[in-house]
């Protein structure tokens, strides 16, 4: 199982990626992880069957800063308060933005929303879920009397969605 | 020159004994009875549904505000059905005039007699219209007359 070192993308915290296989394409400044890929950064995690990581060209050997990651196949983006699932995902470090598309399911505690494209802006904390053009619309259900901001772990009657693979469960607070 | 006897059409004979449904009141009975007499007795798969109504107008109102003559209009909307299928829909009306006698009971009797004559004339008009429609269908001009 290939382990990669911490990559230091812009923004706070190292990026730690683990996967079954790893292919490196120096000249294209690109690394491809495949097989139960988990990219962890601070308290957020991106899981997918296949992730391509793109770097800036570096002057010397090795790679410059990580600019973008493209994930595909059962993509999950997990934060302490929500789990977002999609068919494909793009994590753009420069723009500080994550885009998940294709059968997107957003779960926040007991509240669940579905749509076809979600854009989450990490600086502003604003995420926008949209339906397909002229097709599937956004659908949500909210449970007003349940405090949806409580840490996901404590909301017992709304189990968190299953995330495939053996990815780490890093979020159990002290 | 193309003239055919109206009642000669075989279809018309199938109307003998047509089942007739006219309103629940006196006028309904009179029209139903007159139509049964028009079409004659027999066994028929046809059904005739009638909605009858009558209105009256006072004419020749003179100095003492009394009418000298009345015009009674007896009208009917009717539908000829064969089983559930509507063969023909139509409307007919007859205007029956009668003088107004000065005595009250004579006026009652005159109004009832006008109603009876109106029902008989209406039945005759409906049966003639239906015979004409059947004649037109037979001649290939469709039902509308």
């Amino acid at each position: 199982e290939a382990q990669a070192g911490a990559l230091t993308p812009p923004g706070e915290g190292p990026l730690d990626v683990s996967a079954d296989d790893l292919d490196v394409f120096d000249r294209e400044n690109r690394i491809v992880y495949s097989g139960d890929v988990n990219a962890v950064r601070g308290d957020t995690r991106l899981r997918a069957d296949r992730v391509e990581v793109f770097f800036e060209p570096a002057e010397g050997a090795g790679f410059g800063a990580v600019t973008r990651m493209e994930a595909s196949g059962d993509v999950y983006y997990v934060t302490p308060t929500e789990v977002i699932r999609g068919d494909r995902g793009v994590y753009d470090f420069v723009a500080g933005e994550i885009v998940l598309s294709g059968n997107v399911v957003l779960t926040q505690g007991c509240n669940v929303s579905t749509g076809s494209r979600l854009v989450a802006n990490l600086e502003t904390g604003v995420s926008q879920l949209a339906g397909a053009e002229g097709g599937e619309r956004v659908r949500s259900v909210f449970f007003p009397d349940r405090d949806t901001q409580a840490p996901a772990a404590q909301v017992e009657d709304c189990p968190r969605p299953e995330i495939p693979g053996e990815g780490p469960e890093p979020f159990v607070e002290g | 020159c193309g003239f055919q006897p109206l009642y000669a059409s075989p279809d018309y004979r199938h109307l003998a004994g047509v089942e007739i449904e006219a309103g629940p009141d006196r006028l309904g009975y009179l029209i139903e009875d007159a139509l049964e007499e028009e079409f004659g007795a027999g066994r028929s798969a046809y059904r005739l549904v009638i909605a009858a109504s009558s209105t009256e107008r006072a004419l020749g109102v003179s100095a003492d505000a009394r009418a000298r003559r009345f015009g009674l209009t007896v009208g009917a909307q009717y539908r000829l059905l064969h089983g559930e299928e509507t063969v023909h829909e139509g409307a007919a009306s007859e205007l029956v005039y009668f003088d107004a006698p000065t005595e009250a009971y004579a006026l009652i009797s005159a109004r009832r007699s006008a109603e009876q004559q109106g029902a008989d004339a209406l039945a005759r008009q409906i049966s003639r219209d239906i015979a004409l429609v059947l004649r037109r269908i037979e001649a290939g001009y469709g039902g509308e007359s």
Partner: protein
Amino acid sequence: QGEPGTEQSADPVYLEAGILIDDRENQVLYAREGVRMQSGQRVLLADEIEYRPATGRVIARGNVRLFDGPGAAQLAEEIELDDEMSEGVALGFATVLENQGKAAAAVAVRRADGTVELTDGYYTACDLCEDGGAPTWRLRAGRVVRDLDDQMIYYRDVRLEVLGQPVLYSPVFAHADPSTPRRSGFLIPTIDISNRLGFSYTQPYLWVISPYQDLVVAPRLMTEVNPVMELDWRKRFYSGEIALEGSFTYEREFIDPDQIDELPASDPRVFDENGFYGDEKFQWHVFSEGRFAISEQWSWGFGIQATAEDLYLRRYDFNEIPDLGGGLYEVENRFLASQAYVQGRGERYYADLATIKITSLLENFNDDRIPIVAPVGRFLAELPFPAWAGQLETDLSVAALTREDGDDYIRSSAEASWSRVAILPFGVRAEPYAVGRFDAYSITQTDRFGVETGSSNFTRTLGAAGLDVSWPFARVAQWGDVIVAPRAHVVTASEVEAQDTPPNEDSQVVDLDSISLFARNRAGGFDIWEEGARADLGVTTTLDTTAPMIPDIEVFAGRSLRLDDEPVFGPATGLGSEESDWVAEFSVDVGYFDIAARNRLDAEDGDLRRTDLVLGIEAGRFAADIDYTRIRPDVPGQRPVDDIVLSASLQLTERWSLIGSANHDIEDDITRRALAALVYRDECTDFRIVFESQNYDIGHLEDSQSIGFQVTLFTLGSLQDE
């Protein structure tokens, strides 16, 4: 604001939208593009919804529609509610109440119990104009509260605005919530001005006694005479319904003051300068009817038509032809009839039995000469008879007339009639028939003092046999049909001995036209029996086109010939001689114009004895109907009739129309009655100005001219359905 969250766990909120924006920083959700939000039974539709799950606030913006269960939608530009959407504030709020009441407001607060409080709101039943234009009428108020508990809408500082202009002001006003069934309350008043009664104001009050019973009490205040109290009561029972209309006043009688000096010296009445005479007394009228089902086929009923003074109805502008108090028999023509009856109608029979008390409204008419008709009845039935052999029917009847001053008359009859229709070869339609009748009469003559001066009882047996033959031909084509229909009716009837001739109570008017020509009983009653043999001949030619512009034409000519004996009817009937008058009738219909005339021409000189003419015009916005009647009886002493009745309507605009009608007596060259009305009608208002004039010689009453104003604001205090 109500307390947030209710006892049981709140319903989940379902949301559907084009875009959902989750701003975690400020903990707010924005839903946009055709948003639909549902919580329990409440549905909120809007262009955009801002939802704060933590505080439960919901703000909807952009053609907001809030449905609270199946009830009417509440519309607004912007609404702020709690997330159970039960309570909140709406801006630019309008709610459509059932049956078309609409309340709109700048700011609306909606309580948890559903009460809606509008500030600077208005109420109307008219369609809300998209362009914000003023509806035909609305009630604009500083504060409007729609209270669901007592089903009322309350206003403070309310103005009635017509087309945006304030017309009436009141500090406080309330009316029933139109979504609720009928509620007691004041109805819209009517105002009339007439030369006889002066200015009159009628203020009806509806008292809803129960869902099946209501009473309208309407005092009518008038400047020239004492007030009249009008009542209108209705009650519905399980098997039937009773309705009653009445009025009463306490006043002296009056005539036209200008006609006092025309009165004969013998007239005992003492008049004041306004034409009033006699002393104040209680005057009234009652029209009532009830009808109840006894079984599927049988019902019984009654009708009451009575008034204290012959001229009471006419003096106070009540209609002498009552629309209540009818039943089995209508008499009208200035007679009133009270009756009780039972009626049965089955598949094969019809039966009725009634007693009738008739009074006349003619001022110097001896009512004692009018008989009490008790009983009068008829039983018609089809008897079982083999189908191939034709139809057999029976007709049993009875009529008993009892007079205080005049002859009593009792008749009972039993009739059996047979007929059979046969379509012979070549389409000849032959209908032989036969009638047998037995009459029994009992006549009692009395003089003016009620002393019996003679009586006679006799019976008679009558029979008749006839054949009715018609042989219609039709030439059928695409553009229409031509039909020639000759018809002959030959009948021979038994004689009536002189001593078996009763007084003529029920066959007083006979008039020859195309309908009575072929009628089997032309006399119309039982007392006259047309004996002897006669032949009635006639031919109808019809052109019936499908092409619109080619007129439909029908022409009829016919006459009746006595084959023996003397004629039974008098000369005025057209059947007074061996050869009857000629019947000549025609009708032409071109769609927008139709005319039909039925004429009787004198047998000898062909003079026009009688014409009944009907003319109809329907051209675009204008429609008119004319009835012209002309009678030249060749009997001395009978007044000729030359009379025209016109009614016309002109649609001025989509909402304004002008209607008019007139009865003009050409013989005396006087317009007996004329009416003209300007009518405005739209989806929420019916407003009429009616001018009417009457010109009769009755009881020396002044010819009356009156102008009436009737306003109906739908859903507001009106009984008529929209």
